[in-house]
């Protein structure tokens, strides 16, 4: 069915919504937990062999887990050009396949 919208009539109007929808946020949380699970599995397997890796240790010291993160850090990231110094995380290129968890302190 044809639905007359601004983008179909006007041509150059490709609008990305400024905020995430709630299913998008739910999927974002799911992805964050999936990454946590991968790191936990790798770490547990290495620990069973009495080993450890720098990459895993660094992840645990630097990165918060999904449940420790503030909603602000889950769905937005720092941007100096924004008025509120924050923009929605879906503006980040390849945002569903990169780990972006920490932001500058104070922002």
């Amino acid at each position, binding site marked *: 069915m044809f639905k007359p919208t601004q983008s179909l009539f006007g041509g150059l109007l490709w609008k990305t919504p400024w905020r995430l929808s709630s299913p998008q946020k739910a999927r974002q949380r799911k*992805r964050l937990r*999936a*990454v946590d699970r*991968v*790191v936990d*599995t*790798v770490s*547990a*397997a*290495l620990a*069973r*062999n009495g*080993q*450890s*890796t*720098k*990459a*895993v240790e660094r*992840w645990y010291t630097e990165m918060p887990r999904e449940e420790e993160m503030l909603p602000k850090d889950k769905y937005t990231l720092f941007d100096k050009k924004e008025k509120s110094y924050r923009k929605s995380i879906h503006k980040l290129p*390849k945002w*569903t*396949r*990169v*780990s972006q968890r920490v932001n500058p302190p104070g922002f």
Partner: protein
Amino acid sequence: MSYFRITLLRSAIGLPRRSTDVLKALGLKKRMGTVFHPVSQSVAGQIMKVKELVEVREVDRSMTQQEVWLERKPDPGYYVEKTCAQERGEMGRQ
């Protein structure tokens, strides 16, 4: 000896060259492909490079590609009681 069972869930299209190269090094060619690697620090480091793209499980033994496929094969809904050859054999004996 335990193994990492690594499945590629998300493709590395459009990601930095290094991610693609790590997947190649792990032997992951396309989505839903599964590889087995013994648990070691070097493999762990490689997994950490592509942790957003893969699913990892620790398993006791490595499986062949055939076994991985058979795992996904659906139940045919029937079972074979007797094959033609068996039947012919019985006929011959009588």
